[in-house]
C-alpha cells in the first residue's frame, strides 16, 4: 500500500497492441497500451505532426471530468516527448487503464470524484512512457514523475513521497512533478497552501527521485551514496526495466 514497496513493471503484457506495459507502485496499478502510428480521424489529423491521443480509464465507473483533465495534462506532456513531426497526419493512441488504486479507509469513497488526484499522476506517466518504449515509438527523451505531499506533524513539516489518500486529505499541499531524462521540468502541478521556498525544497526532493545523477562507479562514492539510494530512482528503474526486457528478448542469440 505505501511507498515503501518498490515499483514493479512488466512490458508487452497485451498481445494485440503495438506496445503495452503494466506498472504498479504506491498502491496504484496501471496498464497501458500504445497503438501507433495509425491512421488519424479527419478531425484529429494534423498536416505536420502526429496527434497524440491519451485515454484514461478509472478503476471503477466511467471517466469523468477529472479523467479529462488528466488526459489533457498527459497529452501535453507526452506530445513533447514523442517525435510527433516524424509522423504527420497520423495518430498515436495511448490507453491507460487504472486497475487498482489505494482506498481511503476513513471515508466512503465515491465512485465519481471530480477533484484532482495528483497521486495517480506518477503511475500514469511511468506506465505511458514504458508502453511507448515498448511500442518503439521514437521519442526525444523519457520522463519520470513523482508525487510529494507536505504534512504538518507535531509542529514540524514533513515531506511524504508517494502519499496515500489519507495523507493527501490531511496534507497542507500536494505536488506532482515530472522531469525529462535530461532533467528538464516537464510538468509541475501543485495545490494546497505553500510558499516559494517550500516549493523549491520539494523541487529538489522530487528531482532526486525522478532523475538522480548517475551513480559514480568508484567504490568510495558508492559507500557514500548508500543511504541516499534507499529511495527509488525512477529514471534508473525505467532503464533497468528496459534492459531486462531487452536481455530477455535477445536471450535466444
Amino acid at each position, binding site marked *: 500500500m505505501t511507498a515503501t514497496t518498490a515499483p514493479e513493471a512488466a512490458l508487452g503484457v497485451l498481445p494485440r497492441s503495438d506496445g503495452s506495459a503494466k506498472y504498479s507502485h504506491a498502491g496504484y496499478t496501471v496498464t497501458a497500451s500504445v497503438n501507433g502510428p495509425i491512421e488519424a480521424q479527419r478531425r484529429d489529423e494534423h498536416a505536420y505532426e502526429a496527434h497524440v491521443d491519451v485515454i484514461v480509464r478509472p478503476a471503477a465507473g466511467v471517466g469523468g471530468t477529472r479523467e479529462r*483533465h488528466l488526459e489533457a495534462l498527459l497529452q501535453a506532456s507526452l506530445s513533447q516527448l514523442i517525435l510527433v513531426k516524424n509522423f504527420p497526419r497520423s495518430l498515436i493512441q495511448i490507453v491507460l487503464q487504472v486497475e487498482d488504486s489505494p482506498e481511503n479507509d476513513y*471515508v466512503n469513497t465515491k465512485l465519481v470524484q471530480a*477533484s484532482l488526484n495528483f497521486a495517480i499522476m506518477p503511475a500514469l506517466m511511468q506506465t505511458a512512457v514504458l508502453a511507448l518504449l515498448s511500442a518503439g515509438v521514437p521519442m526525444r527523451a523519457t520522463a519520470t514523475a513523482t508525487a510529494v505531499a507536505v504534512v504538518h506533524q507535531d509542529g514540524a513539516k514533513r515531506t511524504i513521497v508517494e502519499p496515500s489518500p489519507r495523507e493527501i486529505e490531511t496534507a497542507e499541499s500536494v505536488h506532482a512533478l515530472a522531469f525529462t531524462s535530461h532533467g*528538464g*521540468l*516537464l510538468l509541475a*502541478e*501543485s*495545490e494546497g497552501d505553500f*510558499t516559494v521556498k517550500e516549493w523549491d525544497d520539494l523541487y529538489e526532493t522530487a528531482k532526486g527521485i525522478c532523475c538522480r545523477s548517475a551513480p559514480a562507479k568508484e567504490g568510495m562514492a558508492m559507500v557514500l551514496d548508500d543511504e541516499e539510494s534507499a529511495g527509488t530512482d525512477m529514471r534508473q528503474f525505467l532503464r533497468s526495466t528496459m534492459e531486462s526486457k531487452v536481455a530477455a528478448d535477445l536471450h535466444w542469440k
Partner: protein
Amino acid sequence: MTAPTIKLPAPLFAKLSPHPFLLRNLTSAADPSLPPARTNGRGTQDTRPLHIKASSLSHAHGSSLVRLGDTTVLCGVRGELLPVERIPQFRPVEGTREDVESGGDDGVIAGRGEMRDYDLLVPNIELATGSAPQFLPGVPPTALAQTLSTRVYSLLHSTGLVGVRDLRVWCNPKKDGEGKEGGEDVKMEGAEEEEEEQDGVLEEDRVVAYWVLYIDLLFVSFDGNPFDAAWAAVVAALRNTRLPVARWDPEREMVVCSRTERRKLDVRGLPVACTAAVFEEKELGEVGTGVVEGRHWLLLDPDRLEETLCREAITMVVDCSDGETRIKSIEKQGGTSIGRELVRGFAGIAEKRWQEVKKAMK
C-alpha cells in the same frame, strides 16, 4: 541588389502564418532597442484590463460579470437546500452547534470532507456557441470545458474559499435570538407562507440541511486565458452571494427560508490566478535535448491567437491577503522552458497581478 519583397497587410500575414507573425512582432527587427511587443500591442508582461461587476443577475443569490479584454464570463451562484435525509451515507455532525462552529482550523479541514462528500459546491462551465469560432453548436461539453470545471472545482476545495459552517442549517438556531424576527418565512418551493413564533423546544442541536451552491459560468465571449477570468468570476460571485436565512420549523418538520433576511457568505482570502504562456522561437518546439534551445518569451495573459501558438503554459494562484504571499496552486505543463528559476520568478509576477485584481474587485 535586394530581392523584391512582397508586402502583405498585417491581418493577412497573421492569418497565413501566425507563428512567424508573432515572432516578428516580438523580435521587432526594426529597432532592437525597443522592448518586445506582441501582436495585440501589449508588452510581454502586460495584462489586459480587468473589469468586474458584481450582482448583475437578479434571480441568482450571487453573480458577477468579469471582462478580461475580450474574454467575458458571467457567473451565477444559486443556493439550494439539501435536507440531510436525502444524503446517502450521511454521517451526523458530532457535538453541539457552538462546539462545531467555534472549532478552529481542524473544523475547517473536517468541513472540507463534508463539502467534498456531499458535493456542496457544484461548478459548471459552459463555453457558449459563438463565443469563439472553435466552439460548435450542439456538441457535448468539450475537453476544455471539462478541464476548466475540474480545475475550478479542485481549487474551490483546496483553497477553502467557502467554509462549510456557512452552508450548514441547524435545527435549533440559537433558541430565542434570531429565530423570531425576519418577517414572513417562505418554504423553499414558495408554496405557503407562515408566521409563527418558535417556542424553545429543547431538542439537541443537529444539522438538518445543507446549502448546495450551484456555480454556473458562462463564457459570453472567449479570447484566451479562460481560467483566470473564470476564477476571478467565481471569487467575485461568491463574495457577492447572499443566502436567505434558513431555519428548521419543528411543526412542519421542514426547513423554511426567510423572505427578507439574507446573510453574506464568509469568503476566506482572495486567491488570484495568473496565467502565462511560453512562446518559443522554433515552431513545434523541441523539448530540452541538451542542445542549445531557441529563445522563448513568457507572455502574460495570453489571448486566443497566442494560446494556439504556445504549448507550454503556467498558471499560479496566489493569495497575499495575509500580508505574506501564499501559493495556492501551480499548474505548469506542456514543455520544459519553464524551469525552477522561472517558476520562482513567476511568483513575483503573480503578486503584482494580485494587486491589480484586488483593485478591480472593489
